[in-house]
Each structure stands twice: as structure tokens, then as C-alpha cells.
């Protein structure tokens, strides 16, 4: 399975600021995915990061709030913009292999 490195592992941010999360995969993958896990909730897909085209966002998530970059087949970033305390969550990068998803270690974000 792919090895997925994600950073930062955690951060505490002030309201109104932005945080960019990086995800590096050790092999080339067509699609990378960004998930969010709010406290006590299930994992929710934010968007699919496609190389060479704009990300595809799920219902309830918009590009202005969660801009995504995918400059090549091994790297992606997710930015959480204009943060509020409601954005406090774990953000996870993942890649799909066959029918399974593999995840990075996640970014624990706390917004004050």
C-alpha cells in the first residue's frame, strides 16, 4: 500500500486565519482525497484532488473555503480558509487502491 505523509500533524490557529495542509504520497496516484472528521462524527469526504484539473467538491464544501492544489501525481495541499471554531476537526488525506482507501496520519486542527 502507498505510504502517505501528511503535515502538520496538529496545529492551533486563530479565528480568521488560514492553514495549508500538505500530503505527500510515495508513489504516483491518479486521485487523492481529502476527508474531515469532526469530533464524534464519521469521516466525511471534502473533495477529490485531480491532477491537472480543478478539485471536485462534495455537497456542503466549496472551493473558496477549502481550496485544493494538486501540482503533480504525488502531492496535494488542502487549505482551510478564514477559519472558525467549527473548523476544528481532523483532516485526512487519502488515496485509493483498488477498492480500498489508505489514509495519512491526519492533521488535528484546533481553532480558537
Amino acid at each position, binding site marked *: 500500500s502507498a505510504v502517505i505523509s501528511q503535515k502538520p500533524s496538529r496545529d492551533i490557529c486563530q479565528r480568521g486565519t488560514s492553514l495549508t495542509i500538505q500530503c505527500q504520497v510515495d508513489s504516483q496516484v491518479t486521485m487523492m482525497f481529502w476527508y474531515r472528521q469532526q469530533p464524534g462524527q*464519521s*469521516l466525511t469526504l471534502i473533495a*477529490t484532488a485531480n491532477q491537472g484539473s480543478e478539485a471536485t467538491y462534495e455537497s456542503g464544501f466549496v472551493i473558496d473555503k477549502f481550496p485544493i492544489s494538486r501540482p503533480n501525481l504525488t502531492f496535494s495541499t488542502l487549505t482551510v480558509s478564514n477559519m472558525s471554531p467549527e473548523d476544528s476537526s481532523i483532516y485526512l488525506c487519502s488515496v485509493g487502491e483498488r*477498492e480500498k*482507501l489508505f*489514509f495519512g*496520519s491526519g492533521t488535528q486542527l484546533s481553532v480558537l
Partner: protein
Amino acid sequence: DQQVKQNSPSLSVQEGRISILNCDYTNSMFDYFLWYKKYPAEGPTFLISISSIKDKNEDGRFTVFLNKSAKHLSLHIVPSQPGDSAVYFCAARPNTGTASKLTFGTGTRLQVTL
């Protein structure tokens, strides 16, 4: 609408005993089911899966059972070990979906006690 439900937020089992984690789903289009395990400060790791054409899949100490008529699956861990203490997520996807279209449950926190 929670299409994948894990109604037990937590479970405590003694070491050596069997752990049974349950998961219910409502979408009859789901045909592939997975269990993930998550330790604190780590991402979820794939544990075991089952296709809807089967009713049981076994991998070492882990067995997943699928009851399609009841839209219910369960994960059995036997014997349970302290290292199994983690949050377990059930996930499902439809037969036309890709890996990205997994729908996750809210998780069950398993505590294996000595």
C-alpha cells in the same frame, strides 16, 4: 441521513475474550464493506473487507460477517488483545462506486482490558 450506523459508541472487553462490533446500513445499493481501525493521532488503517457476494470473510483473528437481508455486518475479534484497543469504523460503498465513495459510520471505541 446516516446511511452507515454504528450504534455502540464504545465497547469494553477483557483480554482473550471475543469482541463483536456491529454496523447497520440503510442503502441497499451498498455492496462492498470495510472495517478500519484508528489509533489516536494516526489515520485509519484498513483492517478487513467483504463483498456482498459473501457472508463471511476471515483474516487471522478478525472475521467479518455480512447479513444482507438484515443490512447488518459485524466484526469479530478473537481473542482480543490490548493492542486492539482503538476506534473501529465501518464503511460501505455502492456497486457503482469507487474507493472514494465510501460512507463511514461514526465509529466504536474498543477498550480491551487486562
